[in-house]
Structures are given as C-alpha cells and as structure tokens.
C-alpha cells in the first residue's frame, strides 16, 4: 500500500484462504479496492511446474484467469471508488443494550467475544469492583494490541481490561498482573498461521499475595489465580485487538490449547537459582510478569539422569529452529543440574547452546528458517551468515545462550521438565499497575 501511495500501481498475490483477511486489511487501511489476485493453497512444497500451473490457471476467488487478474490489476482504469478510498470512524460502546442474562451470554458467544467456555458477564458492578484492584483511572489508555505486526492496532483503557478480567473470572487482587500483561504490548492471540500462544511467568511477592501456586500441577487447571490470569490475558488479547475470528482475524492452521490459559508463577523459594526476574535486572522484592512468545511445540522429559546430555540434545533437535525454547523445570531437576555443576541457569543455557546442534542441512530445511532467517544470513547478519556457509553435514548451533529461557516450577512429585516454544519477549513491572 505504501507503493500505491507513492504512485506505483500494484497487485498483491495471496493464497485463497487469505481472501477475507486480505480484503479486510485493505479496508482497514482505507484502500478497499486495492487490487489483489489469488492462487490456490499451498505454495510451500509445490514444484516449479505446479506453480506454473497456478500462474496459468484460474484465480480460485474471482474464477477468472490468474494472469488476467494481474495484468488488469495494473492496467484497468481507476473508477470513483479507487480514487476516493474509504474514510470512516469506528467505535465500540462502553455499555451494551440491556437484555436478559441468557440473551447476553448468547450475544457474547455469537460475537465471538468468549473462548466458548462460560464467562462472567461484565456488569457495571462487577467491573467497578475489579477496578478496585488498581490505583489507575478507568479511562486511562494503557496500550495497543494487534494480532500481527502488520495489522492495525486497537487501543484500550484500564476499564476495558477490567471488563475482560471479569469475564475470565479474576478477583480484583489479580488485576495488576492482568494490567501488566495488557500493557506489555504482546498479544496472547497472534493471528499467525503458525498458531502461536504467549506464555506468562509471574515472579515476585505478588505470587504469594494473590495465592498463585507454583507447586503440584502448576501448569494445569488447579489454581484459581493461575488459571484466570492466563485466561484473562487471552480474552483481553482477542477482544482488545479487534477479534480473533477464524478466517477473519485468526489464521492459525491447527490452533493452540495454550490459547485458553498459560500463566504460572516461578517457584522462587524452592529454586536453587536466582529468580527469573532478578536475572532480568529487577529486584527480588519487585513483582514482574515475563512473556514468552511461542507455545507452538511441547517436549517433555525427566532427569537429569546418566544420559541427560543425549536426552537434551535430542530434545533441542526437536525444537522448531526458529523458535527458542522456554524450559520449565521442576525444582528436583534444577537441583540435579546444580549437582552437576550448573550453579546458574546461564551456565546451563550456555551448555545447551554449545552442545545442542543440528546439521546445517536439517537446520535450513525449515519453512520459517527459510522465510525469516535466510534473508538475514544472505545479508551477512551473524550468526545466521556463518550457519549458511556451513557444509550440509556440519553441526550448527541452534540457539544462542541468551535465547534459551529456563524457569523453575512444579510440585516435586517427579523430576519432570517440559520445554515449550517460548521466545522471551519482555518482563513488565506489575507493581506499576497496583
């Protein structure tokens, strides 16, 4: 669209499942008649001959020859709509029209404002009560969220966050954590085809103040605060960013169970290492939430036992190469690593980085490595450029030490660890939102 505005006629080519999304995006950019053409899905894995057939075939959306769409898109004279574009104001009301509880519940479901589990309806009284959990004013605009970097971002206030926190079932004392997550600017509901989720780690005194549990079942539905804070993060992400509707504002092919709820506290008192937030530069007495983008893969194991090195080499080799992991270890596992000389999580991350490798052939034969990292490698950006120069059978480093995040949580009923796709994004002060 920047090229169109600069006077260069353009046609954008998409695969057909993206027709609704690409047209909605054009409308939101004030250019609803932006010329577009479509080819069938998939593009990935198709041979040159198959892609030539797409080019010489029919646009699956318009049902006209694809090349005719392209050529006419560049040469068909503009009409009045093309010249004008579309300007309009949009708004969302503060309150909905009065109705019965049953009909309002149905309205929320029909409008896809829920996660299809029952929600607490956000009455004025309940929202006012939630707002008692912070000193911030209800009308304070605290951030913007968008489902992807290239989509429009929607603004929201403290009150709008409270509405979603009520829907998720949060108590007012949890509200500063929810506000910090909202203010992070990181959506928990990416619209990417890759079906990402965002995982949230809570550190500091607020964990105990609000009754979060870092013990048995920490990553499951066994604690009110853990569960509802994670749920609120997802509900507010979908509602405050303008929706998370399949085919329109959500394109994840498989979806992700971690989009229901994925928040947990670190077991600071039982961890042999410094708390995660302290290693990010915060004071131990500060309350902080850290967010990790990914949630795409999950790998699990036990240990460390005699063959732990082989186990972790295999586990890291199974990670998506473009998405660094968040490793959550039961305190038993963390202490086991201390016994093996890893007296800080940085040392352990450095070991993983040095020893967990993949052949260059496998490393580069990945859709997102090709899409995201290969252009950087070709531009000479390290460490990608060196990996691209490696022989096919050369073992290349998967992740840099700083890419690998480690948290300690769990009930010590087993020496279990779990590794999630979880690229560290940022740590946000919760105390600021009290």
């Amino acid at each position, binding site marked *: 669209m920047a*090229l169109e505005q600069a006077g260069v006629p353009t046609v954008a080519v998409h695969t057909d499942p993206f027709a609704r999304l690409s047209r909605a995006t054009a409308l939101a950019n004030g250019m609803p008649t932006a010329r577009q053409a479509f080819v069938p899905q998939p593009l990935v894995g198709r041979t040159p001959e198959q892609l030539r057939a797409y080019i010489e075939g029919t646009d699956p959306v318009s049902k006209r020859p694809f090349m005719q769409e392209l050529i006419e898109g560049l040469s068909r004279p503009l009409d009045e709509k093309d010249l004008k574009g579309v300007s309009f104001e949009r708004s969302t009301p503060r309150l909905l029209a009065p109705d019965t509880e049953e009909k309002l519940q149905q309205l929320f479901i029909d409008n896809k404002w829920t996660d299809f589990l029952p929600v607490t309806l956000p009455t004025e009284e309940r929202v006012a009560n939630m707002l008692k959990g912070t000193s911030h004013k209800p009308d304070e605009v605290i951030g913007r969220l968008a489902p992807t970097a290239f989509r429009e971002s929607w603004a929201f206030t403290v009150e709008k966050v409270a509405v979603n926190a009520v829907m998720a079932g949060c108590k007012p004392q949890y509200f500063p954590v929810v506000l910090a997550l909202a203010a992070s600017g990181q959506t928990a509901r990416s619209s990417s085809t890759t079906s990402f989720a965002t995982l949230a780690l809570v550190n500091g005194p607020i964990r105990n103040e609000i009754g979060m549990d870092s013990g048995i079942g920490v990553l499951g539905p066994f604690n009110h605060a853990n569960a509802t804070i994670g749920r609120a993060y997802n509900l507010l992400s979908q509602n405050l960013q303008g929706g998370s509707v399949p085919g329109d504002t959500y394109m994840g092919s498989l979806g992700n169970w971690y989009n229901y709820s994925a928040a947990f506290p670190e077991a600071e008192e039982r961890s042999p290492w410094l708390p995660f937030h302290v290693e990010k530069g915060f004071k131990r007495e500060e309350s902080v939430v850290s967010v990790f983008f990914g949630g795409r893969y999950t790998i699990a194991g036990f240990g460390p036992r005699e063959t732990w090195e082989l186990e972790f080499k295999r586990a890291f080799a199974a990670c998506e190469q473009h998405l660094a992991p968040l490793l959550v270890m039961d305190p038993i596992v963390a202490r086991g690593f201390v016994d093996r000389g890893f007296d800080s999580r940085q040392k352990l991350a450095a070991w993983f980085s040095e020893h967990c490798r993949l052949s260059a052939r496998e490393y580069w034969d990945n859709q997102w490595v090709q899409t995201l990292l290969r252009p950087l490698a070709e531009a000479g950006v390290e460490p990608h450029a060196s990996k691209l120069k490696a022989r096919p059978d050369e073992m290349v480093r998967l992740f840099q030490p700083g890419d690998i995040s480690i948290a300690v949580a769990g009930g010590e009923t087993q020496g279990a660890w779990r590794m999630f796709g979880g690229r560290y994004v940022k740590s946000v002060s919760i105390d600021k939102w009290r």
Partner: protein
Amino acid sequence: MSEQMVVHDPRGFPPKVTGKRLAPRLQSLDGKVVYLVDCLFDNSEVFMNQLLDWFGEHLPSVDARIIKPRQSWVDDPAMRARVQADGNAAILGVGL
C-alpha cells in the same frame, strides 16, 4: 419475565480509517518495468521465477524484474525506493 442486565462491551477501540487513493494505472504494460517483489515466504522465490518466465514467454515487451526485501515481514524502505525510482508497476507475493 427475566431480569434485564446492563453489561460492558469487551472490545477495544479501533483506529479511524483514512481513505487512500490507488495509484494511476498503466494504459499498457508494453515497455514498462514491472517489479516482481518476492516477499520471501517459503517457495515464493520459485513462484516469482515462474512468473518471470511467464512474462518472458508471453509478454516479452514487459521488462519484468525480481526484487527482494532485506527481510520478510519487515518494511524495506531502500527496496521501495528502488521500485519507485526504476519501476512502473509492482506485483507483490506471495502472501500466505
């Protein structure tokens, strides 16, 4: 009759949409430079090469050229400047 309730709308605030006009179209592609912008999605390079070949075989009067941004999903002002300076039109793809 069930009791009526008043509840909040849970949605955020969308930005204002400002209309933008399309660029003037070309009367003909003959003799014009058409940049094929490879957006770097996996296999889009192969698609663009096929498109380049198609122009060479069917519309040889069009000067079709492939160009790539520095990174996928990141705006590349230098690439855009080159398309603006040298090009008469652009085909972008392939978006998933």
